[in-house]
C-alpha cells in the first residue's frame, strides 16, 4: 500500500498569489494513498527540505510529490533531499504548479482546481514509480581524436598533458591540416608554419600520443567510456620503422608531374611523396594511382634507391581495433572550388584562384617560393581583385550561412599582395565587412588605410577574359549601384567554407547529428557547444561550423577539458531512465517475440539480440535486450512494441497510464 507525501510550495508569492496552496494541500490529503500533505512558503529552502525528510521518516512515506516549480528546475534538489532521508530518489516526482499553472493563469478557483489536478496526476504516477539505481559504466581512459589539423593537435596535446592516452588519427599522410598550408595568419601576420610545426612535433613526440596518419575511422561501436573504434591504416607501401625519411626515393622518383594537393594543384609532386617538407611523420607514401610501377608493373626505382630497404609494394591496408572512452571530432572543413562558379567561368581560367590557392602562392614554401606569379604565365600580377562572399551567403549556391573567416583572410590576402607587389593594385569586392574579434577590425582598417587596398561594396556578376586580362564586372552599391569594371591580372575568390567531404557518412557512423550543410551539430547552441548529442563524442574546430584559428584552438581545449573531466572518474553514473525488455520465467522468457521492429526505431543502436539458450546450448528464443549504456531513454521503442514487452523506467506504461486515468 502506497504511503505518499504531498508537499505544496507557495514559492513565495509566485504560486501562492494565484493558487490557494492551502486548498491544494487539503484536496491532496483526500487522494487515496496520500498520508501526509502540507503546504509551505519555500519548499526548496533548507527548512522546506527538512520538512520532507522529517515526513519521510515520521510517516514512513513510500513516495513523495513536491508540488512546486518545473521538474526541469528543482527535480535534482528534491530527489537529493529524498535520498538523504533514505528513500530512493526516483520515488520523488514534481507537480509543476508554477511554470505550468500559477504563472500562466489568473488567480481563481479554476487555477486552484488545475493545481490540484496536477498534484493528483503526479500522485497517481508516483504510486507506480519503482526504486531505480543509477547505471554505472566503467571508463576506458584513452581518447580518440579524429583529424590532425590544429584542432585535433591542440585537443590531443591537452588531453595528453592531462595524463591520458590519445590516439590521433589523420587521413592524409601528415598531420598539420589546413593551417599548414596557410602563408601568414591574421591579425598578426605571423607565419603559419612557424607557429604550427613546433606543435606538430610536440604531438609526435608526446609519450601519451599515438599518431596514426594516413588512416581513417572505419567503424565505431559502443558508448560513452566504452567505445570500440576500428581504424583503417591505409597502406603507405613502406615500412615506417625502417624508413629514416632521407627523401632519396622522392628525389629519384621518375613520375614527377602529379598535381600537388598540398599546393592546391599549383605545383607538382612525385608518386612517392611527403605532402610538404615539414611533414609529421616525415615518412613518404606511394600514391598507387599514379605510381609507374603500380600502373605498368615496371620501375621500382624507389626500392632500388632506398638505403634501408623500407619499400613494401605488397603492403595492404590494416584494420586496427581500439578501445577508447571518448572521441574528439576535429575533421575540419573544405573550401568550395572555383568550378562551382559558372559566372566566373566554371573554374576554367588558371588565374582565377580560391583562397587556399592564394595562400600557397603567397607562402614562402609554396610553388613560387612566395613570389607573386600568376599561374597562367608566371608574370607578376599588377592588378588583383579579391571577391569576398564567393558562394557564402548565397542561397543559389546552397550556402546561406556566413563563412566567417573570409572577411579577415581577404584583408590579409590583399595586404600580403600589396607587401609583395608594392606598385600593384588590390581591389576587394565585399558585401559587409565582418571583423568581430580581438584586433580584427583594426587589421582590416590597416589594409584599407595603410596598404591602400581599395574596398568596393558590391557583387561581381561576371568575369571573363579579354585581351589577356580578366574583366571583372561588378557594381558599387555605395555609388548607387554604378557599374564597375576592372581589368585584372588575377582574381581570388574567397570561396565558401563547407563541411569536409564525407561528413554526413561520418556523422551517421558515429550517430551524431549534423546540420543541413553537414556540419556536425553541437548538443546545445549556447550551453553545450563542444558536446554532441551522443555522450562521449565532442567537437573541435571547423567540423562544427566555419571557424578561425583562435576559436578552433579554444574549442579544442574546451573539448579536451571535457574529455579530461570524463577521464577523471573511474566509473560513470547515468540516469536510469532507460528502456528495459521484460523477462519472465520459462517457457515464455519474455513477452518479446523477437520481431526486432524496434531496432530501427532506436536512434542509438541500443537494442541488441539476445539468445536464450537451454541447458543443452540450443537456442530457445531470440529476444531483444537493451544496452543500458547506449540507451538514452527516448522511449521510441516502447511506443513501437506491440506486445508491450519493452518499457522505459521512469516513464513506464503503468506510470503514464495512471497519470492519464487521473484526468
Amino acid at each position, binding site marked *: 500500500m502506497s504511503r505518499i507525501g504531498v508537499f505544496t510550495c507557495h514559492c513565495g508569492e509566485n504560486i501562492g498569489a494565484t493558487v490557494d496552496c492551502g486548498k491544494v494541500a487539503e484536496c491532496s490529503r483526500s487522494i487515496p494513498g496520500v498520508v501526509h500533505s502540507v503546504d509551505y512558503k519555500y519548499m526548496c529552502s533548507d527548512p522546506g527540505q527538512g520538512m520532507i525528510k522529517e515526513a519521510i521518516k515520521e510517516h514512513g512515506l513510500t513516495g513523495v510529490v513536491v508540488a512546486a516549480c518545473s521538474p526541469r528546475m528543482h527535480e535534482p534538489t528534491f530527489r537529493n533531499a529524498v535520498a538523504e532521508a533514505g528513500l530512493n530518489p526516483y520515488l520523488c516526482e514534481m507537480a509543476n504548479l508554477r511554470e505550468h499553472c500559477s504563472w500562466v493563469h489568473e488567480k481563481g478557483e479554476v487555477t486552484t482546481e488545475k493545481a490540484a489536478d496536477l498534484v493528483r496526476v503526479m500522485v497517481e504516477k508516483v504510486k507506480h514509480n519503482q526504486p531505480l539505481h543509477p547505471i554505472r559504466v566503467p571508463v576506458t581512459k584513452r581518447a580518440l581524436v579524429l583529424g590532425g589539423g590544429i584542432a585535433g593537435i591542440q585537443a590531443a596535446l591537452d588531453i595528453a598533458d592531462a595524463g591520458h592516452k590519445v590516439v590521433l588519427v589523420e587521413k592524409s599522410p601528415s598531420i598539420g591540416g589546413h593551417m599548414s598550408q596557410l602563408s601568414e595568419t591574421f591579425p598578426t601576420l605571423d607565419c603559419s608554419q612557424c607557429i604550427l610545426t613546433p606543435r606538430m612535433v610536440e604531438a609526435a613526440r608526446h609519450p601519451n600520443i599515438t599518431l596514426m596518419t594516413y588512416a581513417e575511422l572505419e567503424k565505431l561501436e559502443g558508448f560513452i567510456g566504452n567505445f570500440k573504434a576500428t581504424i583503417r591504416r591505409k597502406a603507405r607501401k613502406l615500412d615506417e620503422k625502417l624508413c629514416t625519411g632521407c627523401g632519396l626515393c622522392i628525389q629519384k622518383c621518375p613520375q614527377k608531374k602529379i598535381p600537388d594537393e598540398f599546393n592546391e594543384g599549383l605545383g607538382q609532386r612525385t608518386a612517392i611523396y611527403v605532402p610538404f617538407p615539414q611533414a609529421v611523420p616525415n615518412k613518404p607514401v606511394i600514391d598507387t594511382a599514379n605510381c609507374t610501377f603500380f600502373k605498368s608493373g615496371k620501375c621500382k626505382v624507389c626500392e632500388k634507391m632506398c638505403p634501408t630497404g623500407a619499400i613494401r609494394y605488397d603492403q595492404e591496408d590494416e584494420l586496427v581495433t581500439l578501445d577508447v572512452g571518448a572521441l574528439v571530432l576535429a575533421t575540419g572543413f573544405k573550401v568550395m572550388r572555383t568550378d562551382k562558379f559558372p559566372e566566373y567561368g566554371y573554374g576554367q581560367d588558371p588565374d582565377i584562384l580560391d583562397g587556399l590557392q592564394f595562400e600557397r602562392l603567397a607562402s614562402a614554401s609554396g610553388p613560387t617560393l612566395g613570389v607573386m606569379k600568376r599561374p597562367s604565365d608566371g608574370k607578376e600580377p599588377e592588378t588583383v581583385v579579391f571577391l569576398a562572399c564567393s558562394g557564402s551567403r548565397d542561397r543559389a549556391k546552397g550556402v546561406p550561412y556566413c563563412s566567417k573567416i573570409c572577411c579577415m583572410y581577404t584583408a590579409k590576402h590583399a595586404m600580403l599582395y600589396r607587401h609583395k607587389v608594392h606598385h600593384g593594385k588590390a581591389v576587394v569586392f565585399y558585401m559587409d565587412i565582418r571583423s568581430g574579434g580581438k584586433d580584427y577590425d583594426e587589421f582590416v582598417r590597416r589594409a584599407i588605410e595603410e596598404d591602400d587596398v581599395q574596398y568596393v561594396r558590391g557583387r561581381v556578376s561576371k568575369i571573363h577574359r579579354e585581351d589577356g586580362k580578366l574583366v571583372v564586372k561588378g557594381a558599387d552599391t555605395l555609388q548607387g549601384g554604378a557599374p564597375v569594371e576592372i581589368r585584372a591580372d588575377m582574381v581570388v575568390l574567397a570561396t565558401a567554407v563547407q563541411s569536409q567531404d564525407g561528413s554526413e557518412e561520418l556523422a551517421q557512423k558515429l550517430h551524431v547529428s549534423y546540420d543541413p550543410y553537414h556540419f556536425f551539430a553541437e548538443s546545445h547552441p549556447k550551453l553545450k557547444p563542444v558536446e554532441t548529442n551522443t555522450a562521449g563524442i565532442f567537437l573541435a574546430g571547423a567540423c562544427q561550423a566555419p571557424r578561425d584559428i583562435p576559436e578552433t584552438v579554444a574549442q579544442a581545449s574546451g573539448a579536451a577539458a571535457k574529455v579530461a573531466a570524463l577521464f577523471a572518474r573511474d566509473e560513470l553514473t547515468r540516469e536510469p531512465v532507460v528502456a528495459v525488455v521484460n523477462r519472465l520465467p520459462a517457457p515464455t522468457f519474455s513477452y518479446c517475440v523477437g520481431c526486432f521492429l524496434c531496432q530501427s526505431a532506436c536512434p542509438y543502436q541500443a537494442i541488441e539480440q539476445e539468445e536464450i539458450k537451454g541447458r543443452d546450448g540450443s537456442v530457445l528464443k531470440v529476444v531483444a535486450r537493451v544496452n543500458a549504456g547506449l540507451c538514452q531513454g527516448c522511449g521510441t521503442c516502447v511506443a513501437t512494441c*506491440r506486445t508491450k514487452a519493452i518499457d522505459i523506467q521512469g516513464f513506464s*506504461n503503468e506510470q503514464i497510464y495512471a497519470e492519464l486515468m487521473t484526468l
Partner: protein
Amino acid sequence: MDLTTRSRELLEGGAVKAVIGYEAGRRGGIRPAFVKEAAKAAALVFDGRCTQNLAAYLTRREVKRMGRVALVAAPDTLRALLQLMAERQVKEEDVLALAVAPDGAVTELPTAAAVEEHLAVTAKELKAEDRALLARLDAMTREERWAFWQKELSRCVKCYACRNACPMCYCGHCTMDCNRPQWVPVASHALGNLEYHMVRAMHLAGRCVECGDCGRACPVGIPVHLMAFHCQESVHAQFGQRAGTSAKLDYALSTFRPDDKETFIR
C-alpha cells in the same frame, strides 16, 4: 510436375518434414492439410477455393518444431511469408514455398529471393468488393463513417477469430492480453471493441499483406480487414512501401525520412 507428385517426392526424399496445403473438407469445402507422409500426398488440392492464408501456421509452435516444411502458397501467402521473414519469425531455410499455377504446375521457391522474384510480376490488387466498400466509406461524411463503424462493431463479440486467422498476429502476448496497465477493456462493449480494432489496425500498418483472412474469419461478418487495409494503404501512399514485398523490408513505422511530409502538423 503436379502438386501431389512433387509433395510425395519431397516427403520421400526427406527434403521437408511436412507439406502444408489444402484438402477437401466436408460438404465440398476446403480445409488446411498438414501432410507428413508421402502416401497421403494425394489428398492435396489447389484451386480457386483455397483462399486461407496458410502462412499463419508457420509461426505456430507445433509447426516450428516440425523442421523444414513445404508451404502451398497463393500470392498473399507468399507475401505473408516474406513479411514473416522480414520480422524474423520464419527462417528462409525452414520453408519451401510451392506456388501452383492454374494448370497445376508447381514452381518451387526455395529462397526469399525466389519468392520476391515470383511476386514481382503479380501486382497486389484489392478485391473489387473491398475496393467498392473502401470507396463508399471514403465518400461518407465523418459522422456517417462513425455511425457505420459503430453499427458494425456493435456486433463484435471479441472472439479474436480475426487475430487467429491473421498471419501477422503471431505475438505471443497481444496488447489485448496486457493488464498492467489494462490498455483495452476485456469486455466486448462499444469502447473496447473500437479500441481493439484500432489497435489491431495500427499494429498491422506497414505489416499487413492485405490477404483479407481476418475479414473472412469474422463470424458476424464485420469487414474488420478494411481497417488494416486502410492503414496499409495509408502507409503505401505516404511512405511508398508495401508489406510482403521483400524479406528485408524495413518497418515503415520505425524508419523515417527527414522529409516525410507533414501537412497537418502545426
